[in-house]
């Protein structure tokens, strides 16, 4: 029942928030409730057995038995940290949006809780249709978040976001349907369970594009690639991020993008092993292009949030590169990078939001000399920056190093190009840092007194957990990876005949 509780508890919370008599209670109550949800999620540390690669804490109830669709949830080492990450970031998002969200506070927190529920469901669903349902359902709260609480071009951004994502995922729906019928042919009865998909023998013909496995592979890949987002289907992301309110950006970057990469790990790689292998070069190429391209474009962005958004493209390119290196280093690194990106980019968006609340501009050119005006903020920003550009002993380094190592093993030329991302990452982040924090006082700082722009206690409280995690994950990666090790090993070593057992 734990997993079901984790998925639907936020829905209950949303109702609680909706029923609160006074709006001024919404924020504190939401914060406490989301903390409660995080605490409940932490129960997983006791209930989850990290030594096993099997699917654990399974719950299965018939939903649409005619099509073999079940309410089937379970957790393994791959979903484990993503679930924790989602639950961890929500209280921070609530705390971080304390003053950022001024109108329709109640509705905003309802959206936040529904989004949490949908993301939890996405990461925990083992049934393809259930996964699809949560995957799609998560769009709606985010759509509203951007559209209602967003910036000036919010309508454009939110429509673009929704249509892009929807366009990819509908083809995935067709592919899921095809797989369901394949289970019927090969196993005698229909099943939408991913576990049964793993056992399918999806016919593959190398060299011929129009064969079953390749088509299904690309149908799934398109959906997830848009979500990741990979070059060249990334253009919804900068717009969505720029227009989204701070907590929306945080959740979008930290959690929702992971749905794409998680989809690759859960669906694409194990269900279509031959096609994945055959087209690995293509995805590595896109990953590499994404890394360099994202970095170059981030470099010349005039808007801080857009810069961070493009840096996401670059970072997620690393993740894809690692996953499609298809070896232990790459996969582990890619997985770790997913978490890192969640922490550091989430933190960056929070930070950008904090300063935006004070100066009401995100134009880099209007800043300058912020380090004097907001020293603590500067320290936090620098730490997160170093995490983002993968300085050793921060979390980012572990992920990037392992990814590059794995890529080098798989294809040294891609690794050679991907390494450029290490350089360019430093370039765009530090250049931005230089222009924002150093030099003479910028226009945006206007009449503010020295240090009066600095962040307050609440904001420090938001950032401290993230900063701690940055170093914790950088110093003791094993504390985190040990929980996923068995599953990742299983994914890499048994890729061609992948199987997830159910924990007895």
């Amino acid at each position, binding site marked *: 029942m734990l997993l079901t509780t984790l998925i639907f508890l936020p829905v209950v919370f949303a109702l609680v928030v909706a029923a609160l008599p006074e709006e001024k209670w919404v924020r504190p109550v939401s914060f406490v409730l989301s903390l409660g949800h995080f605490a409940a999620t932490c129960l997983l540390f006791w209930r989850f057995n990290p030594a096993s690669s099997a699917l654990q804490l399974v719950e299965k109830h018939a939903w649409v038995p005619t099509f073999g669709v079940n309410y089937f949830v379970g957790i393994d080492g791959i979903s484990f940290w993503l679930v924790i990450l989602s639950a961890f970031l929500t209280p921070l998002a609530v705390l971080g949006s304390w003053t950022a969200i001024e109108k329709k506070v109640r509705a905003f927190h309802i959206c936040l809780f529904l989004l949490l529920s949908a993301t939890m469901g996405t990461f925990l669903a083992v049934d393809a249709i259930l996964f699809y349902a949560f995957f799609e359902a998560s769009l709606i709260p985010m759509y509203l978040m951007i559209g209602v609480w967003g910036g000036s071009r919010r309508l454009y951004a939110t429509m673009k976001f929704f249509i892009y994502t929807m366009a990819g995922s509908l083809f995935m729906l067709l592919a899921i349907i095809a797989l369901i019928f394949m289970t019927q042919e090969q196993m005698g009865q229909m099943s939408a369970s991913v576990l049964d998909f793993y056992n399918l023998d999806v016919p593959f013909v190398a060299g011929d594009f129009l064969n079953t496995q390749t088509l299904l592979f690309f149908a799934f890949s398109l959906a997830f690639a848009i979500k990741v987002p990979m070059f060249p289907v990334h*253009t919804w992301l900068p717009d969505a991020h720029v227009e989204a309110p701070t907590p929306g950006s945080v959740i979008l970057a930290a959690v929702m993008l992971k749905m794409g990469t998680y989809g690759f790990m859960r669906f694409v790689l194990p269900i279509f092993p031959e096609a994945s292998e055959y087209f690995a070069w293509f995805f590595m190429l896109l990953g590499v292009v994404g890394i360099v391209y994202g970095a170059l*474009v981030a470099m010349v962005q005039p808007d801080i949030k857009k810069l961070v958004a493009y840096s996401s493209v670059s970072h997620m390119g690393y993740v894809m590169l690692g996953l499609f290196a298809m070896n232990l280093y790459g996969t582990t690194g890619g997985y770790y990078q997913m978490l890192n990106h969640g922490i550091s980019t989430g933190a960056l968006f929070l930070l950008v939001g904090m300063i935006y609340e004070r100066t009401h501009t995100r134009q880099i050119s209007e800043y300058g000399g912020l380090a004097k005006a907001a*020293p603590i903020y500067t320290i936090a920003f620098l730490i997160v920056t170093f995490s983002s550009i993968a300085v050793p002993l921060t979390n980012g380094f572990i992920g990037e*190093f392992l990814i590059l190592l794995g890529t080098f093993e798989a294809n040294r030329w891609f690794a*050679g190009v991907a390494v450029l991302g290490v350089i360019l990452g430093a370039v765009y982040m530090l250049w931005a840092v230089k222009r924002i924090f150093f030099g003479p006082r910028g226009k945006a700082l206007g009449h503010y007194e020295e240090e009066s722009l600095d962040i307050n206690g609440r904001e420090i409280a938001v950032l401290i957990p993230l900063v701690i995690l940055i170093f914790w994950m950088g110093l003791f990666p094993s504390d985190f990876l040990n929980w996923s090790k068995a599953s990742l090993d299983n994914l890499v070593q048994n890729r061609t005949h992948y199987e997830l057992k159910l924990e007895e």
Partner: protein
Amino acid sequence: MNHALLILTLLIAPLIGFLFNGLRFRSHNAYLAGAVATGASAISFLCSVTLWTKLVSLPVENRVLETKFFEWIAVGTLKIPFGFVVDQISIIMILIITGVGSLIHLFSIGYMSHDERPSKFFAYLNLFLFNMLVLVLGDNMLMTFVGWEGVGLCSYLLIGFWFTDPAKAAAGMKAFVTNRIGDAGFLIGMFILFFTFGTLDYSDLAAVVPKVAELGWTGPVTMACLFLFLGAAGKSAQIPLYVWLPDAMAGPTPVSALIHAATMVTAGVYLFVRLSAVLVLAPHAMEVIAWTGALTALMAATIGITQWDIKKILAYSTVSQLGYMFMAVGVGAFPAAQFHLMTHAFFKALMFLGSGSVIHAMHEEQDIRKMGGLKKYLPVTYITFLMGWLAIIGIPPFAGFFSKDEILWQAWSSPHGSKGLWAIGAITAACTAFYMTRLMALTFWGKSRVSPDVHPHESPPTMAIPLIVLGILSVIGGWIGIPHVIGEVLPGHPPNIFAHWLEPVVAKVEAGHGSAVMEWSLMGFSVGLAGIFAWLAYDFYVRVPSRPKAVAAALGPAYRLVENKYFVDEFYFGKIINPLVEASKAIWLYIDVNFIDKATYFAGDLVSGLAQLVKTIQNGKTQSYALYMALGVVIIMTVVLSS
């Protein structure tokens, strides 16, 4: 205390200093901050000394103190412990780092006493110390890389310490990014080594490499070494990545002394001494390293002749000296490289601190054209600076003479060396003598050109003591590495202690050719050359001050080329960086906005256009609708009945 605890203390002390000062970064109390930081550094130094005594007490063949704190990364066969090793190489490094580091910390108290944020400064300095210690103590390449990036980070922070000046902030960024280019090479080098030898552990590498060598895999090793050299070139300011170091002088002078002269910039040399067993398998890579080092030495030395900023001259001098070290590495003279590293740390730190003292005295004036005749105002600085000068131009028996001549001799005699390398080295030595003497002449000798409202004054004792200590070291520091030929004729036949100390841990290159006579004559030649050029510079700048201008005018374009540092910065900015930025803007505009988004819009426009078509067809006329139906029926019937 057992060695693990010692190493822990050694590392933790500066970290605690960093946290202490970092958490109270707003404090203006330079003395408290400096005391804590210097104390932390001193504790580390004491630990280093203790470790050294421990090491000495161990048998020669087994002088290793290892400790692994925890498993850092363990994925697949990659097992990276958070482990440290103290052996013959790293002990030299940590003694230099903590020793010279402590002195510089001490010096900084005085130097930074009037700064706005002394606490922050000392915090960074201690953080640097920590990272530098991690770099040299790491027992595997990845730990070295941790320190490697860490020192780069601190360098970035310290160069940009006075960040309100955009040029200084830019210099910090330039340093970090240039280093990152090298780091990327370092990463690839590591990958190649890992997938060739299956380990990144230094001791494992040393054990595995000779066996693998028998298989004749020189290809990957050469590639690995070249990529690692790219990393080293970034950190140690070699062609083509040296450009950041002169700009790095934007940082406070003690930083230049500690990071950009004595310790961090020598990390590349340290790396190759550490990996000597691997490097000797790649003779082609060695050749590249040697020649790059030599050319860097020459190039930087020539630039040094034309500079007017006291720190810039020293910076180019550093680049040049680092070139020597790489030349030594390239010809397989690892002990010589390490030896020069040490002596250079002494005299260059001294000269930087001395220049700091001068700048401090001159109220932040760095242009040597506005100095002159300072020896009477700054006696201590002058005397100690003089020691450094004598050391760097290689006058026996000062420290620089031994190390530099060792390198020159090896460049001549080593099987990897050549006469060309030696010649470049010798010319560089001549240039060095010239520009260093020029520096001395313009700063301390001759007539005073100090502007009347500046009243130079000697520095306080906290600044003087480090100068004196380093001055003494610059004099005697070379005596532990007296070459064999000199040792033979000296009373008591002092051996080359330094080379013997390192012997067990560095790869041996087969003995050089060349006789003692040859060695003596080359030594004499180079010392003589240095003397001549020193005198020449004295002649130029003290006796006939009008001559430099005339010579410069006579040289014309050649002079301007050198004066403008061979236009390398202009080339990088004009031909690489700016085009890259412009290209990125173009990519953003043309690919992102105008192509991908346009394609998306095109889909939208297509639907929109079709919508217009549908709307046109839907014209509201009942009879048109009936016509569509009739046409539909006709077409369907045609299809169905005709087939």
